[in-house]
């Protein structure tokens, strides 16, 4: 045999860089990136719309009323007193509505009125101002009893003529609201992380399928290691997403600055009042990016491996469905674990590689300690390495086949067939 030629091939990293550079540029200047940028807006818009509709429904249909059935003179005094109290107490004084004007000594059938379930009537006030009768379900009685007593007393002129001015002092938060705020931050962070990861993993899968459709894979496989193709694709998409996040970060940063200077932005969100996460906002953002990267790399590797097994878009969809569903379940699992800090369920969510990024981001929002994040990132990085290697191996093994595929052997009652040579 001849003398050996010196090794001559791009290193793994350089080859990955060639792939990543091409993919990065191709995606960044395509419609895909535009949709990626808009992606997080959809849940926000849907959430805002749902919230708006909900609050509108709540305000229009939610406030209960007390029906009033008394003599004309009593009702006149009652409504005058209500007007004054409502002005002072606002929603603290329930709405009242006249339903009947009774003659002296006339009885009113309050249970019958409530039974008809008209409008928003939650209770009925009858009798006289001296001896008022409140009819309501038990759950409502406690709610209205005090208000009705105050109302009738005021109508009788027994209440204070003037309400003393109450000085108010606003505190930033209480223990309870601090915890509630952090939970909200953790939940928001997890949801955003989940949405972005799913969006991105889907995009990288589409990218691979497109590559197979374009028949470029074989050119890549002949020139560079398959691991490099994998890494290049994964990291290109990560790079694209980080550009997207940087853009979003700049927009949000601008809004925060505006909010600090001018109060609520567009009368909508006051960023200065957002509850601060346990590790503080700067580190929370850094960890958010790190956990997003880890979560995406893990799921992206799995999706890429699936992509290598599939030959058509339909096959990809079929095969990726269980993974997508599992990821949704893991997201719910991590969300559930968030409410159980320190308990085995949270530790399990942290230890399981695919739920770990979500669980740890929640922890960053809820707890001040930083060291667990160092350990978690190292743990997740190990799994990313394993996933990329296994995915690449599977890809290399499966994707470069030639010739007809043998008919799958039937098992059980059917005899196993033999495969013919190509």
């Amino acid at each position, binding site marked *: 045999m001849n003398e050996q*030629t010196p090794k001559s091939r*791009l290193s793994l990293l350089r080859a990955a860089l060639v792939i990543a550079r091409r993919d990065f540029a191709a995606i960044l200047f395509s419609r895909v990136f535009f949709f990626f940028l808009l992606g997080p807006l959809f849940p926000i818009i849907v959430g805002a719309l749902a919230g708006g509709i909900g609050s509108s429904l709540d305000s229009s249909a939610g406030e209960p009323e007390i029906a009033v059935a008394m003599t004309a003179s009593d009702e006149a005094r009652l409504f005058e007193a209500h007007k004054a109290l409502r002005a002072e107490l606002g929603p603290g004084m329930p709405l009242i509505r006249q339903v009947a004007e009774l003659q002296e000594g006339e009885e009113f059938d309050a249970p019958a009125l409530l039974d008809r379930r008209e409008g928003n009537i939650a209770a009925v006030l009858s009798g006289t101002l001296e001896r008022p009768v409140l009819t309501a379900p038990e759950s409502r009685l406690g709610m209205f009893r005090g208000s009705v007593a105050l109302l009738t007393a005021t109508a009788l002129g027994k209440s204070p003529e003037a309400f003393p001015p109450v000085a108010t002092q606003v505190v930033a938060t209480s223990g309870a609201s601090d915890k509630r705020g952090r939970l909200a931050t953790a939940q928001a962070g997890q949801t955003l992380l989940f949405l972005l990861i799913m969006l991105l993993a889907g995009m990288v899968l589409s990218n691979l399928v497109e590559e197979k459709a*374009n*028949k470029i894979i074989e050119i890549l496989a002949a020139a560079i290691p398959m691991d490099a193709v994998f890494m290049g694709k994964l990291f290109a998409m990560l790079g694209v997403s980080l550009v997207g996040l940087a853009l979003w970060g700049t927009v949000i940063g601008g809004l925060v600055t505006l909010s600090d200077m001018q109060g609520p932005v567009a009368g909508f969100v006051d960023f200065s009042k957002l509850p601060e996460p346990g590790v503080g906002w700067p580190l929370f953002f850094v960890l958010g990016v790190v956990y997003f990267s880890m979560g995406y790399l893990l799921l992206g590797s799995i999706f890429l491996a699936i992509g290598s097994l599939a030959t058509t878009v339909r096959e990809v969809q079929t095969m990726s469905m269980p993974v997508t569903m599992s990821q949704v379940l893991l997201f719910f699992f991590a969300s559930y674990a968030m409410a159980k800090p320190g308990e085995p369920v949270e530790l399990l969510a942290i230890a399981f590689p695919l739920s770990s990024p979500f669980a740890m981001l929640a922890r960053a929002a809820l707890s001040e300690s930083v060291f667990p994040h160092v350990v978690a990132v190292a743990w997740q990085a190990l799994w990313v390495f394993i996933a990329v290697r296994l995915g690449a191996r599977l890809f290399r093994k499966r994707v470069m*086949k030639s010739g007809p595929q043998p008919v799958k052997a039937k098992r059980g009652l059917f005899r196993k067939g033999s495969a013919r040579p190509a």
Partner: protein
Amino acid sequence: MDVALGQTSPSRNASGRLAIEARGLVKRFDGTLAVDGVDLTVQVGAIYGILGPNGAGKTTTLRMMLGIIDPDEGVRRVLGHDRPSEIARLIGYLPEERGLYPSMKAYEAIAFMGALRGMPLKEGRERGRKLLEEYGLPVERQIRQMSKGMAQQVQLLGTLVHDPQLVVLDEPFSGLDAINQGKLERLIRGLADKGTTVIFSTHVIAHAERLCDEVAIIAGGKVPYAGSVDAARDRIPAQVRLETASKDGPWRAALPPGSKAEGNFWNFALPESGIEPLLRALIEGEAGILSLSIERAGLHDAFVAIAGEAAARALAEEKPLEARR
């Protein structure tokens, strides 16, 4: 193993060095035997053709030689290296299934393919532009805006942009019109003249006959023949076409068995004893020879005969197996 490695003939740039040496390559896919003990030797600077019908195992053999897939059995050395994937910079490969990024411009596509083989992007772009201009192809046009044939030529130029020592082309002529097929033939000759080893697979024998120093015929995953084109043609006896004035007479006894008549014409294989004894007998028998031509068998005839024999052997091997089941 059907192939005798000693049959190879010296190539135009015969240097005695081997660009490729493969022995006993076997590849199975899920139990299906795609390649069954292939042996090949290709000399540096040669133009080597791999011929075979569709599904014969040509692509799988090429992929194994390039290290895209590993053989289940056997060894191969490419440019003196056991692991061909580690010398990717020295190899240019045009796969059978053509593929380019549709959104890329032609020169960028070439530069990208060069970058995959270690060429700096800037240099790749410059060389890409130059090559495209040289071959009369649009430089700035996106691949998606090109015809299939044009895109194929761009990909071919991308295969060559980094000046590889070994060029492997899988069915390079398919999809090209006659003019571009001619251009490609000239390109392949030009590469070989520069000392580049060119291996290409095809099922169109005429290209191999015009271009190749040596060929391997693959059928059913095996190589029933590997060697020079001349040696392949010599496997089939030359065909004689004889025209006589007389239609019948004692001279007919001199014709070889199996001779076929077409009016006053007779077609038969050239006897092993040569043409002279036959001519003497025809003259003595007063056949009245009007014309006589001896046609050497073409590579196509050799291919049909060799591949046909291989198929018949494979069928014969399968039948007893089926009878045993």
